[in-house]
């Protein structure tokens, strides 16, 4: 699954794009896509300082999807990176708040229709 993650060498921001559903049935593919990108030479060489979770296409996250996000929080903790999440869906925002992810990243909630699904 190519989700179109990006890294900006200009401002050292690593942006992970997530699909419409990050659930038990999709999470392995999403994890594989993210892992492949994080292991890429571009990311290693860029030494990013900010990790952005782009959830603007995301409509549903379940507990297995959250596990992946927690793993990424730990990964970025180990690299002393700042974190930011972009959210459009109220239900996704609620899920992130409910598991206290607002304490671990800057949540930018801009309500609106989901943008075109990544992946």
């Amino acid at each position: 699954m190519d989700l179109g993650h990006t890294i900006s060498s200009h401002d050292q921001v690593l942006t992970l794009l997530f699909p419409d559903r990050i659930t038990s049935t999709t999470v392995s593919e999403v994890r594989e896509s993210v892992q492949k990108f994080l292991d890429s030479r571009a990311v290693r060489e860029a030494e990013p300082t900010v990790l952005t979770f782009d959830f603007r296409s995301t409509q549903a996250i379940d507990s297995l999807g959250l596990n992946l996000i927690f793993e990424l929080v730990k990964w970025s903790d180990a690299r002393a990176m700042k974190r930011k999440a972009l959210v459009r869906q109220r239900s996704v925002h609620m899920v992130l708040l409910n598991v206290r992810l607002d304490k671990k990243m800057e949540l930018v909630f801009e309500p609106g229709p989901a943008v075109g699904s990544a992946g």
Partner: protein
Amino acid sequence: MNPAPPVPARQVRGSLTSTLERAPKVLVVDDDLLTLRLLEIILVQAGCEVYSLADPLQVREKFEKGEIGPFDCATIDYSMPGCNGIELMRALNAVDPCMGAILLTAVDERHLVRDSFREGAVDFIAKPVRNQELLETIRKALERTRARRKRLETQLSLKDASRASHVFRNFGVPELESRLATAYVPRDEIGGDFLDVFRRANDDIVCVLGDVAGHDLRSALLSAFFSGFLEGLIRQEADVHAILRAFNHRLNLATPTEGILGAPDSVAAGVMTLDASEQSVEIITCGFPPPMVTFADGRIEEPETANAPLGWFSDAEIEGTRISLDGASCLLAFTDGLQDFAAERNIEIGAVAYQILAHEQNPELLAEIVRDSSDDILATRLQLQSAEKAGHRVHPLMKLTLPGTDESRIDEIESTIQRSLELAFGSFQRLPEVSLCCRETILNALRHGCAGDSGRFATVEVTFCEVQSRLRVRIEDDGPGHDFDLEARKEHLETCDEHFDDPGRHLGLVLLERTSDYCELQRKGATVIFDFFLGQDELNPFPGAIDPRG
């Protein structure tokens, strides 16, 4: 061009009067005054009452306003200025679809009017008109009009009879009106579904839903016969089991030599007897979908026993299931038309029933909601306790029984739940949260409670209490539950970030606790109950027709 003045009506007996018991009324429209006069003369001589006009637009206007007509037949020239014969015929048939029409054409116009047969014209005649041909064609048109009118009249009277036979017959139980909701959407003018409610001398209430196979007069008559049979014997205080056995026997006597498939008469029935103390209800189903009984704790019970349709086996025993009630109990019963409708659309029966019962007073809207149903639809909801006893009426929305191997179907299951809730309430704001909590709890039940075993099952029950606007989900598995202290765990999760250190541990529980408005774990978590309180403004929006998809 000036319209030709109408020829005064004249009663002249002739060959065409034998078609009707009075002089046939014939409309003649032709912009050629010579032809118009000729037709008038021929038709009047043949005993017709003729109304003739040369201007088709004027005819159309007068006919649509009801200033002229009805006619038994119309003879219309094809080629006229402003409105050709087919256009005029279409306009006239829009007002009176039964009226036969004949188009007069020039020989070279025939190919142009061939389509008029599809528009309802009986025939077309080439000019110049010959008397005998005209009269013979008009005779056919009159016969066709008469046959169509007769058919329409029969359809309307069947519809009336059907409407009368399906009106809720609340015999002697007027106080049930506020406790009973019934929605009926017939597929045809007449059918065999019915609902009757009776009160016995001991104050037991007997509610009968019946479904006679077929959609014709025969099924309607059998339905009426069964209904009368029931009422007579219930008024004589006969036992319901004995009544059903007797009717089954009667049906089998009627067709003693035919097998099941050949037997023309069978009746599916659900008989619910609520005892006078309102402590229990006995449910007997004979080839009838199991009704649902709700409880305040979110359970939905269905009768354990089922009998064959009446008329199948002459020696059939009739068994029922008695269910004890609590203060919130409601009974939802429905004929198989609703069952099939829901299954074809991959939505849950209770959700469809909730939506149609919310619109029980609006037949047009009901028909729109269940458009394209292949069968009659009848659903009824009875609040089983009287107002002073009842707490909060609880409507069953869905009951799913899932084998432990269903984890791979979780997206499909979640979609069914979402679609069903959307149908019941519209796309309400908290739907994704409800859906997420259902998903998490179902996955937990299938994985841990049922251990992925095909022989173990999880049940999902969803109910709605209107008074409280409370959507309650109850998910239960037959596993032993968790081996840790749930209360201590919940308390701990409230205050710590454990899941950051140990991803994957009890995140589902955290989500459930924090997303729902109320959450209760029983049997060490093998039974999970959670509630969402929905805003009043989110309830009962008209969902539009339920499309077949899923």
